[in-house]
């Protein structure tokens, strides 16, 4: 029973990381109707920046996280402006291939700068851990803070898109770019802002991920990126609560699957669940069925 509880909490924690990454996928998809496959690699860049800030510049963890967020925000805006904006009218396949290209560019850029040897990431948290059931169940501070970060981000994003002028403009752009433009909303700037937010969240996710799994390599972002993308599709791509639910469910399935079914098959199980869900709900758990405009 205690073991199950431990797996469950770890699952929610891993799922929270997936959820934070999935938010970036889903927001960008919602607004630009494109799959930004370079998103996973932005996570990796964020983790490297935080690593460098702590290891080489001896900055406190909070400053390191902020630095990672600032760098990733800028990176996201630059990627969008240089690689995706010129393709706004292009076929979606061209955009997809470009995104894969950006992904390889970031991975190889990281290889060039930081080398192929894994870096051992020092956890940004040093608060200790919580012991329950007379020490039988230990919950690390990483786990708790990851879950807390996820909740805070979820609330902040809900308030942002529901209450603020910019957030509403973002929803308007995601529904109808032409009509939004007619309202006086600068569509390009709104898309940039979406990439900025998604990338800042990716930095947070990178730090959280590497605090729990401390091996940092240029390919660190790709698997979590793919899983978070799966989570976004699972929950219904384009839906913010969908990304949250999809992420957390995926994390739980992965950890529980690895614990009780098979360690080797854990990842396969995740994708098997995706396939089953999409068979019955093609738009994902919270996704809206696509309406073709006539």
């Amino acid at each position, binding site marked *: 029973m205690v073991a199950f509880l431990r797996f469950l909490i770890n699952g929610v924690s891993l799922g929270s990381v997936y959820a934070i990454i999935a938010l970036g996928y889903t927001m960008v998809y919602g607004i630009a109707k494109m799959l930004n496959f370079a998103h996973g690699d932005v996570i990796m860049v964020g983790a490297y920046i935080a690593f460098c800030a702590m290891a080489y510049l001896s900055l406190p963890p909070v400053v390191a996280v902020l630095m990672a967020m600032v760098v990733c925000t800028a990176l996201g805006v630059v990627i969008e402006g240089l690689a995706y904006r010129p393709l706004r009218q292009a076929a979606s396949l061209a955009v997809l291939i470009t995104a894969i290209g950006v992904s390889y560019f970031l991975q190889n850029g990281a290889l060039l700068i930081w080398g192929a040897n894994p870096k051992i990431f020092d956890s940004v948290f040093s608060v200790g851990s919580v012991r329950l059931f007379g020490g039988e169940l230990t919950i690390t501070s990483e786990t708790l803070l990851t879950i807390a970060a996820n909740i805070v981000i979820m609330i902040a994003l809900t308030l942002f898109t529901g209450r603020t*002028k910019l957030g*509403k403009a973002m929803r308007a752009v995601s*529904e*109808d770019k032409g*009509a939004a*433009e*007619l*309202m*006086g909303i*600068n569509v390009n700037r709104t898309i940039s802002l979406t990439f900025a937010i998604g990338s800042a969240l990716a930095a947070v996710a990178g730090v959280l991920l590497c605090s729990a799994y401390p091996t940092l390599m240029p390919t660190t972002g790709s698997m979590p990126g793919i899983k978070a993308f799966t989570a976004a599709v699972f929950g219904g791509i384009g839906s913010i609560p969908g990304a949250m639910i999809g992420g957390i469910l995926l994390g739980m399935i992965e950890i529980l699957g690895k614990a009780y079914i098979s360690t080797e098959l854990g990842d396969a199980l995740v994708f098997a669940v995706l396939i089953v869900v999409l068979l019955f709900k093609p738009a994902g758990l919270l996704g809206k069925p696509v309406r073709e405009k006539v």
Partner: protein
Amino acid sequence: MAEQKTLLKVDGIHVYYGSIHAIKGVSFEVNEGEIVTLIGANGAGKSTTLNTVAGLLKPRAGSISFEGRDITGMSASKVVSLGMALCPEGRRVFQQMTVKENLEMGGYSRQPQEIPASLENVFSRFPRLKEREKQIAGTLSGGEQQMLAMGRALMSKPKLLMLDEPSMGLAPILVEQIFDIVKELNEAGSTILLVEQNAQMALSVADRAYVLGTGRITISGNAAEVLADDRVRAAYLGG
């Protein structure tokens, strides 16, 4: 009629969709206080013309000026802040946002403190929208969505309101209601550029009219004259 101030001047614009030459040198003017209508058959280029004036499309040649200022090629989001609003074809309200949020988006280019007064103004003209303030726009009826689209355009307090096919897909009784509102808005001081397939209705409310035939202005004049024109009667008014 006294000499009126020209609000909008479109001079010989050419617009292309890729290699298709959709608008071939269209010129017209809208003076302050007028209702001007642009009529013509399906595919004549009416909506293309409006979208170009609003800044959604860029003309390859020709010029557009608003209050004497050259706005050719200016982006739609900037054009709005100069005082021009387009209520687009097919309404295009934000389906998943509430009525109030839609209206707020209409006032996006304005200062936040000006919004409540404009909201009141729109609600007093369209009491139905007030009743449905918190409802998701996608659940409104066609007529209500048209009112919302017009109200949304009014939120920017435009000097020139452009309406693209406001009667499209509406029941006859609602069409009449929409045209009554157009007249009321004009009497309240709005200048209106109206694009319509329902030529009869459009000509009955307009001061002046331009007839568009495959990318060119073929006939223009006072609405009454255009209404009496044999070519117009034959082509657009069913005899």
